[in-house]
């Protein structure tokens, strides 16, 4: 994996990849699930997003990957105000965001190779221009021998690594992960964390929502902690590995 080509541009464009200004969010007419959030993520930063169930971690991620809109406040991403960008530009923003879901969201009718190649195909790349890249990425996440397998035949850890490979194949500027170690054992959790750290070293901004306090403690990274929809920035809990 080479250094993220967008990262340097992002650093020049703005001193943050993502900035929330007084952002609140509610579903329909329900109560606010997120309240008055103010924070920013610098290019190349690595944060964990923690909080109890229902604290609003997934809602916050949804706002970032444009699956939901804030009911109040402004979100700036890559120097753009998301409240004013036209709908046609949203897919272009999404292509700069990689998302890893707890439930993987792999396409069951496609092979592992096809799943990873998906964002590149959607971006309009020709197969010959990326087939070696996809193969290398699958080797990097330890799935070289499983590239022709269907997702249903993969183990939990393999699915998670496949989902990570799909999320990063486009060299996103920001990588979001929602409970990426929720379905894997301890060793696999550490292995997955190492992948995220390596991606971060290559310039990708990483934000991981997790319950796994052990993982947070081991990483020694900054933590954004949500309590009842409000944000409390905590200090890094320990030395970086």
């Amino acid at each position, binding site marked *: 994996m080479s250094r993220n080509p967008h990262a340097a541009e992002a650093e020049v464009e703005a001193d943050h990849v993502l900035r929330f200004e007084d952002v609140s969010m509610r579903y329909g007419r329900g109560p606010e699930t997120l309240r008055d959030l103010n924070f920013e993520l610098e290019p190349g930063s690595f944060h964990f997003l923690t909080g109890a169930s229902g604290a609003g971690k997934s809602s916050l991620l949804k706002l970032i990957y444009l699956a939901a809109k804030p009911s109040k406040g402004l979100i700036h991403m890559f120097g753009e105000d998301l409240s004013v960008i036209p709908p046609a530009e949203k897919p272009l923003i999404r292509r700069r965001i990689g998302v890893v879901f707890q439930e993987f969201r792999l396409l069951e*009718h496609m092979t592992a190779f096809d799943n990873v190649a998906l964002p590149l*195909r*959607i971006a309009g790349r020709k197969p010959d221009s990326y087939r070696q890249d996809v193969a290398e990425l699958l080797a990097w996440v330890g799935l070289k021998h499983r590239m022709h397998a269907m997702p249903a035949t993969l183990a939990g850890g393999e699915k998670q690594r496949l989902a990570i490979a799909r999320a990063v194949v486009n060299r996103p500027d920001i990588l979001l992960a929602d409970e990426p170690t929720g379905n894997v054992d301890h060793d696999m959790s550490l292995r997955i964390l190492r992948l995220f750290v390596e991606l971060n070293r290559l310039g990708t901004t990483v934000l991981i929502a997790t319950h796994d306090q052990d993982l947070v403690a081991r990483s020694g990274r900054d933590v954004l902690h949500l309590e009842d929809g409000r944000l409390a920035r905590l200090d890094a809990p320990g030395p970086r590995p």
Partner: protein
Amino acid sequence: MSETDAFVARWRPSSFLPAADSRDGALTFVIAVLCFLACLTALGVIASDRAARGWSDQLTRQATIIVRPKANETPDSAAARAAETLAGVKGVSEARALEKEKVEAMVAPWLGDISDLDDLPVPRLVAVDLDPNGPATAADMDAALKAQGVDGIVDDHSIWTADIARAAGMVRWFGAAVFGLIAAAAGAVVAFATKAGLQARRDVVEVLHLSGADDHFIARLFQLRFARMAAVAGLFGAAGAAIIGAGLRLAGGEGGLTPVLPITWTDLLAVAPCPVLAALVAAIAARLTAEGLIRDMA
């Protein structure tokens, strides 16, 4: 070359959407039936139109003269004189007086058996065949009869030809309406199927969205899928209708099934555009439905 390298070299992108599911077969069948009915309607309209033209041509090539004998002549001699007069009119190929028995047979359905009622003043008829290249007009024939002092009424069948033309026009409009209804029904079926397909594959749509696909890209996937399915269904429907049409043509022999519904071999070509039209209707319906739903999902 290792097995993995061979896989990478051979790899071809798979479909963005899952392969057909059980609903697709039912949908193909429904669209095929609709296409079959639409093609039969088209063949029926074409055959009816041809029949109407045939009847119209027949009527416009003939005229009938009702001859009333004068006091000093018999009905037969009046009819003969009228036929002789009309035979000389430009645009008339042949004029012949109909025998009394033929006339009585013609009025029998209304008056019953009148052969024993010699005093009943049954008018004599003269049948006139007109030159198709330059037929005589009713006015020409009327003038010629008047000039020869024959008391006759010229019936050029214009009332009937107008009725037939009107009936043929109605059949055409009726056919177009049925065709339109079937196309609308096919569109509605595809729209319904698109909606169901999108709901069933919502997870796929979400992943495509998150991977950077825009609404048009995703809508196009559904559009292509249903257009392809409709084209196949249209092919089956058109083939079925063509087989029925060919069967009617063969059963009818040279003149078509009957003079009422004459089908020719070339008429069967009318079903050829069916797959394309079905694909077009399905593509439009799927596109509009998918774009609306995907917008709502987003």
